[in-house]
């Protein structure tokens, strides 16, 4: 059972990772992250079921397509609002999210779909059954995080991204193409969301509102880990996943869905900077 919580937590962590990447680099919060996840799941569904492709090919297509879409989004829409109040940009992404949901319901219909996966079996280790489905989520998250870690710390572009997120202006003066970096960050973030969507699809089934619930909890995860800390986001996701699971199992009805938010509220009151975050006061 802990594995289930861990797996769901990993998904929250991945989506929270998407939030944090965009927040760190461009200082805006992308409320459409959950809808990108939904788009990813739908693209994979289309590739696997409609076109009859292999699961892994579908996975790849979903990640690449949604990633490219994320970059396009940044290039066409979000670059226009650089320099406007943060609140306006947040509303912009909310509007975009609503558009994506409508787009999905018009293109793929508003029914509920299942994505066939190669992870049907179970392992029994010491009397505990581990379903491959949940293992695949945990494993996929680990691989993705490893790749991202290597990318950010050991490639030129990754280090340029770190520099950009620390100080845009200084990075620009050092010859880093900040605009391109922003698009790339959006691409990575959208790609991660799509991967999370494909991994999550067998567990929650695919429908147009799957992103919203996940995004709200991923939000809680991101705040818990301190908005702006990448390991924090993953830890926060896992914590939220486990809290949700144990609250559902031990507390009365209704706490399963609200427990993450209660934790979030307490967290915001007690320690607004999160578990791993740092917060500085503006100086004048």
């Amino acid at each position, binding site marked *: 059972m802990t594995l289930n919580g861990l797996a769901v937590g990993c998904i929250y962590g991945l989506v929270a990772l998407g939030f944090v990447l965009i927040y760190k680099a461009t200082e805006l919060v992308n409320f459409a992250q959950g809808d990108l996840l939904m788009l990813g799941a739908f693209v994979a569904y289309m590739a696997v079921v409609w076109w009859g492709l292999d699961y892994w090919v579908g996975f790849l297509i979903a990640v690449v397509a949604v990633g490219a879409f994320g970059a396009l989004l940044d290039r066409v829409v979000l670059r226009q609002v650089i320099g406007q109040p943060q609140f306006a940009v947040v509303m912009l992404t909310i509007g975009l999210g609503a558009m994506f949901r409508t787009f999905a319901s018009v293109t793929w219909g508003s029914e509920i779909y299942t994505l066939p996966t190669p992870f049907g079996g179970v392992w029994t280790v010491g009397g505990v059954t581990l379903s491959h489905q949940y293992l695949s989520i945990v494993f996929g998250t680990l691989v993705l995080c490893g790749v991202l870690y290597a990318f950010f710390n050991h490639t030129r572009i990754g280090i340029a991204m770190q520099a950009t997120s620390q100080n845009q202006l200084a990075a620009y003066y050092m010859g880093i193409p900040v605009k391109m970096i922003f698009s790339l960050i959006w691409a990575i973030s959208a790609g991660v969301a799509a991967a999370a969507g494909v991994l999550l699809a067998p567990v929650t089934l695919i429908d147009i509102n799957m992103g919203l619930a996940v995004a709200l909890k991923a939000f809680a995860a991101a705040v818990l880990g301190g908005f702006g800390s990448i390991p924090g986001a993953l830890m926060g996701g896992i914590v939220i996943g486990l809290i949700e699971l144990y609250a559902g199992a031990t507390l009365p009805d209704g706490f399963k869905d609200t427990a993450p938010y*209660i934790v979030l509220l307490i967290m915001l009151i007690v320690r607004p900077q999160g578990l791993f975050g740092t917060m500085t006061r503006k100086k004048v």
Partner: protein
Amino acid sequence: MRFQFKTSYDQDIRIFRDKVDVFWYGLLAVLVLILPLLLDDYYVGETAWVFIYGICGVSMMVLVGYTGLVSLGHAAFLGIGAYAHAYFIQHGMPWVVAMVLAVALTTASGLIVGLPALRMTGIYLTIATLAFAVIIQEVFSRWESVTHGFAGMKVDKPVIFGFEFATDQSFYYLCLFFLVVVLWATRNLLRSPTGRAWIAIRDSEIAAQSMGVHLAVYKSIAFAYSAGVMGLAGALFAHKIAYLAPDIFTILLSIQFLLLVIVGGLGSLHGAILGAIFVALLPPVIAILRDSIPESMAAFAAGTGLTFVGTIGSAVGGFLAKPGVEAGIFGLILVLVILLEPLGMYGRWLKIKLFFSTFPMYKAATFKRQKSYMRSERLR
């Protein structure tokens, strides 16, 4: 062009700027008073929605537009007001008492939410209100002894001092009355030191603090007032919708309220009303278009022999009839407004007005906003 010649400081804080204003607002008042006599019952009912959304808009405007605190949880306040009002009425309280209690309860809950909000800024506050709204929605669906959960809760027509507001017309006047009261109260608050403190907090918390504005006190007042007004709107909302269920008060409704103030124009009461007109009337307009576009285009195709026009018409009608399209259209409008007209409808109106009053001399640069590329939250 009209020039204002100010001879005393009072002129800056008058409710109406001058006699011309009084004339136009008077004309507007006469118009809304005789409107029910001119319109069908259906449209009178829709206009009552405009007034209820107008009250919601004023509530959001005080918090978002004037104090600069962005809330994604106002649907919860609306719900608290609506459920409290319906509950008190069901238990035999007079309408006025139920209304006052409902407003008091929402004001109190606004204060409670506002207290943690004092420690947070910007996006964290938005997230906190969002979490609050999700929890409250769960409470609505679980606390069945009060809210009847998903079975729903029926709300009767309002009966005030023995008079039943049964028709659409009478309810229209009731909503209009409360909207005017709320607008008048808010306008007065905004021209008082409280309102000025709110605006100062919005423009710069640090500057406001150093000028002696007590941040905690004024933010709490803003939250409580905004929630209280929302509770009032909730009471009217309960009567209007006649059947309360927890899935009305979702995050989507909160987003709609934010959309309202942004489309209307942040930082003006006019914006709240314009936004309310927009948000309340868009769904019926979409419904009308859905029926009339295929018909009229088919008629045009039959008349001219251009069959593809008819095909386009039925395709558009089919698209508008799909579920969830309305939310997408709202989203599209939100995106376009933020990209093209960040000041909203009221900002556009000001531009048009200035264009005509300074006719050959208009400059677009008058309204140019300074962009800031500095990072606001992580300054060291």
